[in-house]
């Protein structure tokens, strides 16, 4: 036996045995292959989509600038497309990207939600899940952890070697430490090469914006996956110490795995939807239309502004021809406020559901890790809300630029009043800066505390199981 502390000897013995086991090498090799395939696939997919979006945004800018001379309000109707930037780390965790619209069309009078969720075009079988590095790390890796830990104590007990081991004078703590290390060494042997491959792919697959700071986010992802694997290690050891036999330990751990990976997400969402319902598509559209239906029509609007004009409400420099422009700007402001309010309500309904969903991670470490993973990759609903808000702000900025030009000229429907490229250039290109890692994490504090809590619980459970462990 190796000289040195007892726990090290146990760890080295367990790790060596695991390594020599053909089944482990097969499983680890397969997992590694799947990880690399997922990373390569994710990176390729990500860079293709990122390129499409960057090209489209450039083409759209050209179309906007080269659309020729027209009345500024006609330009507002011509509208602008805003394409969702693709996050570099979506190669690791695409998160909600397949379930979110890819562009927003910004135009006068009405505001739209992002359209064309990729999931609409995909075959329904896509709903069965996609192999991504994140799913490999959060779903498949725990399975490897389970296979490494379920027999740690239960196996020794089944073979009757647990009592002799303790009779050697090895304390239970160094036994636990040894078993934990023994399980983690082969795990690390899989994780480190995978992390290196992932880092290489992400690095060489940098998107249109090579300065995007992703180092901290990528490091955060690695920490989350590691923490999640450690939670499972603790759980595996604790269950193994208390289970009747190694078969029982395996069944319990597999049931926990299935519940965490597959049952909890839909269940937590069903609960969230029951507690905090969001509107149906029809309800959402009808609420907006119902409010609009109560508004005065265009001619009445113009008449009312004319009355105010005749009452001397406006500056004396304003000409009667300006009345329609004032009516337009006022109705545009009312429309923007209306849509902003309804969109904010919808997004806060989403946020309410997310909050309940996140709280369910008290029941499931995998849920907490998944939320954090999406947040760090920049593909969760908080990031989507930020993008939608930026698109809304850009729309109102664009309309203000165009409308204020009309107000200055005082001519709305006089189509001999046309403007050209010089005005279109005053509308800056859409430039969206993704919030930093600190913001991303601050949106998911609940998940972070939950994962940290699970880490502590798993460690405590493993330690506690030592004192109550049955030797035979």
């Amino acid at each position, binding site marked *: 036996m190796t000289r040195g502390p007892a726990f090290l000897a146990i760890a080295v013995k367990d790790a060596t045995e695991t390594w020599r086991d053909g089944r482990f090498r097969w499983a680890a090799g397969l997992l590694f292959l799947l990880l690399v*395939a997922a990373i390569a696939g994710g990176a390729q997919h990500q860079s293709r989509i990122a390129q499409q979006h960057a090209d489209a945004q450039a083409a759209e800018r050209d179309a906007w600038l080269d659309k020729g001379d027209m009345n500024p309000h006609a330009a507002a109707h011509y509208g602008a497309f805003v394409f969702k930037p693709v996050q570099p780390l979506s190669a690791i965790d695409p998160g909600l990207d397949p379930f979110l619209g890819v562009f927003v069309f910004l135009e006068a009078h009405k505001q739209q939600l992002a359209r064309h969720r990729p999931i609409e075009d995909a075959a329904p*079988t896509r709903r069965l899940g996609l192999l991504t590095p994140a799913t490999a790390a959060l779903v498949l890796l725990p399975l490897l952890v389970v296979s490494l830990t379920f027999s740690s104590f239960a196996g020794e007990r089944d073979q009757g070697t647990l009592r002799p081991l303790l009779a050697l004078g090895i304390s239970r703590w160094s036994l636990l430490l040894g078993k934990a290390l023994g399980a983690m060494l082969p795990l690390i042997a899989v994780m480190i090469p995978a992390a290196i491959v992932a880092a290489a792919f992400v690095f060489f697959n940098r998107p249109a914006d090579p300065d995007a700071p992703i180092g901290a986010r990528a490091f955060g992802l690695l920490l989350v996956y590691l923490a999640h694997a450690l939670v499972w290690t603790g759980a595996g050891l604790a269950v193994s110490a208390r289970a009747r036999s190694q078969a029982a330990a395996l069944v319990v751990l597999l049931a926990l795995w299935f519940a965490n990976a597959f049952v909890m997400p839909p269940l937590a969402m069903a609960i969230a939807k029951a507690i905090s319902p969001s509107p149906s598509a029809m309800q959402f559209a*009808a609420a907006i239309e119902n409010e609009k239906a109560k508004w005065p029509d265009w001619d009445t609007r113009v008449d009312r502004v004319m009355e105010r004009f005749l009452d001397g409400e406006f500056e004396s420099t304003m000409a009667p021809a300006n009345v329609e422009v004032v009516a337009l700007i006022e109705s545009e402001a009312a429309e923007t406020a209306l849509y902003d309010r309804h969109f904010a309500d919808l997004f806060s309904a989403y946020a309410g*559901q997310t909050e309940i969903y996140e709280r369910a991670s008290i029941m499931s470490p995998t849920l907490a890790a998944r939320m954090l993973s999406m947040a760090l990759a920049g593909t969760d609903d908080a990031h989507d809300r930020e993008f939608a808000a930026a698109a809304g702000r850009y729309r109102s900025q664009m309309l203000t630029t165009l409308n204020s030009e009309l107000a200055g000229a005082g001519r709305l429907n006089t189509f001999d009043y046309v403007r050209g490229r010089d005005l279109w250039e005053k509308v800056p290109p859409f430039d969206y800066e993704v919030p930093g890692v600190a913001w991303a994490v601050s949106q998911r504090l609940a998940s972070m505390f939950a994962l940290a809590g699970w880490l502590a619980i798993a460690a405590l459970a493993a330690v506690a199981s030592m004192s109550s462990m049955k030797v035979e």
Partner: protein
Amino acid sequence: MIAFLTRHEWKLLATNEVVRIVIAVFGAALVFASLLGVARARAEDTAAIPIARSMRADAIANERGAVLVMPPAPMASLAAGQSDVYPGYLKVTARNVDALVTGDQVAHPLAVASGHFDVAFVILFLYPLLVFAISFDLTAGERDRGTLRMVLAQPVGLRDVVAGKMIARAVLLGVPVIVIPILAASSAAPPLLAAWTAAVVAYGLIWHGIALIVNARGWNAATNALVLAGIWLLFAIVGPATINLIIDLRYPMPSRVTAAVQARAATQEATVQGNRELGQFLQDHPTSSNVGREGMRQFAMLQAARDRQIAERLQAVETAFEEQLQRQQRLAAWLSVLSPTMVAQGVLLETAGTGRTRFEHFNAAAGRFQAEWKAYFEPRVLDAATLTADEVRDAPKFNYADDHSVTREVALPIAGMAIAGVILVWLGFRSYRGYEL
């Protein structure tokens, strides 16, 4: 003889604690998923879009248009499927562009990503796992304890014994998996329920067949359990996820983003030109309220001419996109044959009415309705007419009728699964020929 052995095995299973737990978990999951599904289907209500205040033909036909709501799918309570992805309603207008406007789908993206705990989920994932959980030890334990030899000293064949054991287990899980969904969706049309049940039976047959084959290898019970767990993981979890990755890379769907830019480029000239003509008209008739009927007719004509120009140019782009999309979807569909779970999921969704077929069927019906709507309203819009209440009342009405043609489409995959299942079961029994006691 097999009936006798089955009854005997049934009694044995009934006293087995593990089997009791498995059945309880399975039954509870099915009932819970059914209850969730019924609640979900009930929540799908509709809100009415307000009526137009103006009786101008344009306001009725185009601004308000006709809102077509897809009625809840016949068995949506069993499989939520794509009901949270495809647009729940369409707005029809009498125009040439934006003739069919798809409504937004506003389900929370996180909810869509999380999927549903529905009956289909329980059948696709839990059912095969539990099939394996109660049949990983068909004969290995008895053989190792030596009791199998004693049983075979009686005038019974090994394969009859195995058949009895397998049938008892198949019935044990088969009864709840067939009965509970039928109860949960009792209002659905019989052909659909029959197709659903056939799919479930065929899917079960495949997994029972796999269990038989593994059992016949002669390993001990622990090895059987490990191998079966691996097969389940591979076929039900890793397989579909990997196939989906391959589909994404090998047959990517055409980009909506690129298509939007192409549509923009194709229609730019017609849009700008059309708008200029409309603008010229408005300048000649400075106040919109008193252009007169003739003026409004001219305006409507100009608008229709612009729309036609745009629609013509848009068509080539849209047709190319749709063709590309359908080709990719066909190619992708072939790959999913590799996983029984993917095939079964496709069949269950289509049968439940929450897959692509019913959505396309609805879209086609909406397209035909649009032609009627346009034929009725377009002349009136071009005439700048103000409609009478009777005219509005007599406008075409949309009545969507579900047909059960989907049962024909799922027949082939169901037959495929059934054949695969029968072959696997047959292979399993055949390999028992060389079983060493």
